């Protein structure tokens, strides 16, 4: 028998983001963790997805153009007068 239970993998795959975000109940987490122990492809899947999320969270903030604050205030003042 193939050690790799594909149906189980797919079910797990659909829940990986919720697992990363700690949004699943304890029993489902335990099921996932048990499955992961015996399934290197799912481990790889989880690690790559986790790292993707971590990278998004660490993206640098955009540099606001130097003159934008002034332009924004001028425009808001002008528009506010017309309201």
């Amino acid at each position, binding site marked *: 028998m*193939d050690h*790799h239970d*594909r149906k189980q*993998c*797919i079910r797990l*795959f*659909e829940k*990986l*983001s*919720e697992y990363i*975000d700690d*949004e699943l109940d304890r029993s489902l987490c335990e099921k996932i963790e048990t499955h992961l122990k015996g399934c*290197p*492809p799912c*481990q*790889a*899947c989880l*690690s*790559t*997805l*986790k*790292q*993707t*999320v*971590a*990278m*998004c*969270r*660490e*993206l*640098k*903030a*955009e540099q*606001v*153009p130097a003159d*934008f*604050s002034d*332009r*924004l*205030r001028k*425009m*808001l003042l002008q*528009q*506010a007068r017309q*309201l």
Partner: protein
Amino acid sequence: MTRKNSNPKKTDRDTALIKSIQGGRTDLFDELVQRYERILYNFSMKMCGKREDAEDVVQDTFLNVFKYLKGFRRETKFKNWLYRIATSACIKKRRKSKYAPEREISLDAFIPPEQAQVEQETPLWATLPLNQVLNEELGRTIEEAILELPEKYRLVLVLRDIEGFSTEESSQILRLTPANVKVRLHRARLFLREQLKSYFQDP
């Protein structure tokens, strides 16, 4: 028995300032702009990718906040309400532009293939500490990949994974169910992961 209010007023770091502005101190509006202009610009750039578009979104957002603040009833945090307005401004902007057509992302496209072709081991890039792997070039690659996402997925990803809103807050901002937010987020992340895999595989 006391009756529970189903829509209690939310109090947060902006409450006092908002109350003052609503009470007639419109001169304090500038403080609100100061508080949020940078983060709104960042959000808009991640959503639109172009400086001019991002500036328009920030301007439109503050204008609408100024117009409608009197009617804000604090049924949600001010920040969530602000992002709801910013989100609408982004959507409006996209409708005016020609690029980024809307399409669905199917989960099936990301389901790992049968065993023989499946990645057996975790690739190196997923095991390294972030400071060793996330450089400027990769940051730009991720930002470009985010811009390739259809807008409904991009919105969820930017709110959840860049702006740090919870599932519940994102569902309020986007007027979606939490389940829907989760589905879109998962697909958006899988899409990005594919782009990262290609980035690290390509010589």
